[in-house]
């Protein structure tokens, strides 16, 4: 039996699946439903100062759909909570009292003054919430008022506000990072310097989801005018994974607890974030698309995965993939893979052929003895993976390494060396260039 419970910077929750600060956590009604459904914790939708903000009454959400209208990208122009502060605080207090085993984190965003932060922290403490998350990420509406991303994009501000917060509360402080920066490590380092207990990322990505070609306006729009929103959902997951990995492996931030966010829909997505160092994960889009029940699949899938791999608790595999994230220059240039097409699985659509023929290395045949037949020409194949990516049949095209000692028919060079770019003779900066192995070696 595996144990899914986590202790994240002192915040305990029965499983690592939290709902991110967003519409699903805006009020007691939703949060109670989430807890009933089995979520381990919530980050309550961002509180601000009264009077509450006002949302547009035009559309707030847009999306990119894949086949069959699956939502793969989602964006919003909603602001922080538009309910009075006191109402939210009372509800938070009541819900935490009724659901003691669940994590209750409160997201906050107030003007960049120490007294404003001190004041709201004091009130949140009274709710007995488990921690706070500083919203330095919101890319629209709030940033124009000097909050949200306007803070998150300036490392000095991140550090300053984090420090204030640590000074004014006993609660753990999580800093939520915006991805709309050049180098995600900088604000993460700033948060750490400021004393933050953890970072959570990513917040949403600046985005225009589409253009209404009739109205000649961004889509969706309010009375013909549109604005950029923040994008999330499956499409941002790769961006988020990279940013999580960068923080996890960077010397300056190594070991800083991370709550992973960005396009998590299934246990597998969650496990990937965790393998790259996230101690908990936060979900919003998938819940908004499918409802709270998805957490059942996540818990079951993660437990099964851990059981299969022999991990008894979540911490057994958190960060386990981090040592294998490296820079391009450390990749072995003498390691050679070739694509192989499983003829029994091949449905003869020809996508691999045309992709390779038109846009890559002309390494896949289209016929054999006059019949439609797709086969890799090893003499031309560079092992780029394009064919496997475009193949509609899973596992039909695989890439296998040539065995040590074999000769790559494309280059005529023996396989099995260990040269990286740093040792390659083509690198003018190489300190100790090494020639390729010879057949004898």
């Amino acid at each position, binding site marked *: 039996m595996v144990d899914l419970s986590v202790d994240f910077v002192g915040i305990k929750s029965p499983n690592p699946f939290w709902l991110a600060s967003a519409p699903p956590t805006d009020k007691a009604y939703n949060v109670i439903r989430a807890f009933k459904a089995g979520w381990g914790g919530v980050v309550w939708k961002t509180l601000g100062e009264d009077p509450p903000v006002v949302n547009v009454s035009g559309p707030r959400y847009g999306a990119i759909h894949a086949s*069959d209208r699956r939502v793969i990208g989602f964006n919003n122009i909603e602001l922080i909570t538009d309910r009075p502060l006191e109402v939210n605080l009372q509800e938070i207090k009541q819900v935490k009292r009724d659901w003691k085993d669940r994590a209750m984190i409160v997201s906050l965003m107030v003007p960049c003054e120490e007294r404003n932060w001190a004041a709201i922290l004091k009130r949140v403490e009274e709710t007995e919430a488990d921690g706070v998350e500083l919203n330095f990420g919101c890319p629209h509406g709030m940033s124009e008022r000097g909050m949200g991303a306007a803070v998150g994009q300036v490392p000095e501000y991140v550090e300053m506000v984090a420090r204030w917060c640590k000074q004014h509360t006993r609660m753990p402080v999580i800093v939520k990072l915006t991805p709309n920066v050049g180098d995600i490590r900088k604000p993460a380092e700033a948060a750490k310097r400021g004393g933050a207990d953890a970072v959570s990322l990513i917040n949403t990505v600046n985005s225009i989801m589409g253009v209404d070609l009739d109205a000649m306006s961004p889509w969706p729009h309010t009375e013909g005018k549109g604005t950029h929103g923040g994008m999330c959902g499956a499409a941002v997951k790769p961006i988020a994974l990279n940013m999580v990995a960068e923080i996890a492996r960077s010397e300056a931030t190594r070991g800083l607890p991370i709550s992973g966010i960005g396009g998590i829909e299934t246990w597998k997505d969650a496990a990937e974030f965790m393998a790259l160092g996230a101690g908990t994960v936060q979900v919003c889009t998938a819940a908004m698309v499918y409802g709270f029940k998805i957490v059942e699949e996540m818990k079951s899938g993660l437990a099964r995965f851990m059981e299969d791999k022999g991990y008894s608790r979540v911490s057994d595999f958190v960060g386990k993939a981090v040592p294998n994230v490296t820079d391009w220059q450390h990749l072995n240039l003498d390691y050679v893979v070739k694509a192989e097409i499983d003829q029994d699985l091949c449905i003869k*659509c020809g996508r691999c052929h045309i992709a390779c023929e038109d846009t890559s290395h002309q390494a896949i045949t289209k016929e054999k003895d006059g019949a439609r037949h797709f086969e890799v020409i090893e003499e031309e194949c560079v092992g780029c993976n394009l064919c496997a990516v475009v193949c509609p049949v899973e596992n039909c095209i695989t890439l296998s390494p040539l065995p040590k000692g074999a000769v790559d028919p494309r280059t005529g060079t023996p396989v099995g060396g260990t040269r990286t770019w740093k040792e390659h003779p083509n690198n003018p900066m190489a300190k100790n260039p090494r020639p390729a192995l010879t057949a004898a070696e």
Partner: protein
Amino acid sequence: MDIKAGRLSADQLRANFCDLAPAMAPNEARVAAERCLFCHDAPCVTACPTTIDIPLFIRQIAAHNPIGAAETILSANIMGAMCARVCPTENLCEGACVREVSEGKAVEIGRLQRHATDAAYGAGKQFFRAGPATGKRIAVVGAGPAGLSCAHRLAVLGHAVTLYEAREKAGGLNEYGIAAYKASDSIAAREVEYILAVGGISVVHGKRLGRDFRLADLERDFDAVFLGMGLGGTNTLGLGDEPEGVMDAVEYIARLRQAKALSDLPIGRKVVVIGGGMTAIDIAVQAKKLGAEEVTIAYRRGRKAMPASDYEQEVAQIAGVTIREYQRPKTLLAAGGKLAGVELEYVTEREGKLVPSGETTMLACDQLFKAIGQTLLPEDFGGEGGLQMKSGKILVDSARRTSRPKVFAGGDCVFGGQDLTVSAVEDGKMAAQAIDSMLKAAKAA
């Protein structure tokens, strides 16, 4: 004998004869279109006699451009609207679809084609117009799929076309022969209208080759001739005098298609159909839909050998038609000159030959439809010599040229055809291209 009209109410008939494969809702079309893999050198295109660029038109549908999709379709096959409804897609494009191979569920190419062509027809979008006049005149005999396709392509190429049609309406088997539930909403007539709207085609109705004019007249008066008159005769059972109640399926379907009210059509209580092709299926299913209680198809060979596809056979079975294999009619039983039943002889197949087993069975019936194939009658082309024939049909080369200079032919009347609307369309299109090349070459010389 119990044959009478109006077995079912008008409401029941309307429900029975609604579209076999209804139009797709926009969302359905989009989901279906997104299943297409956009194959390279796609097998579906190879399998289409008119080589419609199927992956392209489906991608156009997926990209919210059904009108563009229709242009892709109609440029290759001007009868794309009817072909979408009547093609045995399970044997053609959909049978070749890689998704059929991998999942047993092809992309619904036929219905997507209908979706696109419906969109263009609905929007009144005309993609073609007669080209600049070349001064050449061409006679086309028969306004069926082959003749209309040929005439249309010739008009687009700038030639003046005179289209002779013996019947009252143009369309050929699309108008007179296809099962009603595959061509609802007068689509055959609307398609003819669309084709003729190109301009440059004058249609002469009620004139029949061999009766009202001779092939030699056309050769004399026109720069080229295209023969696409189909098959005028039907095969006979060869069982002697036929009692009342024995009918020709092709003739009956033509009557059905032209009927003002389906309730006017007399149909038997017990119906037998002899044959195994599309016509046999069409008449059997329609007999059932008209209110016949028992409909039985008797086919002399095994079901696998039936020209009607598996899908067509399934359509018949779902309609409640019984299919008997290896049985052929031996005697027509009559009472007072009226059909009372049929004696069917069991046969076996030995080395491809049918051999009577010696056993027979009786099947009582009020009405028996012959659906055993059509033939080309010599009078269909004026009985004139000089046209080289093969197996009773006109012999043409790959450019659809007959043995006579200036005379081309296509559709059901030529040897080696597939008896499909789509192959007739291709014949007409290829012949038009060949005629155009011939005339241009003559001009250059």
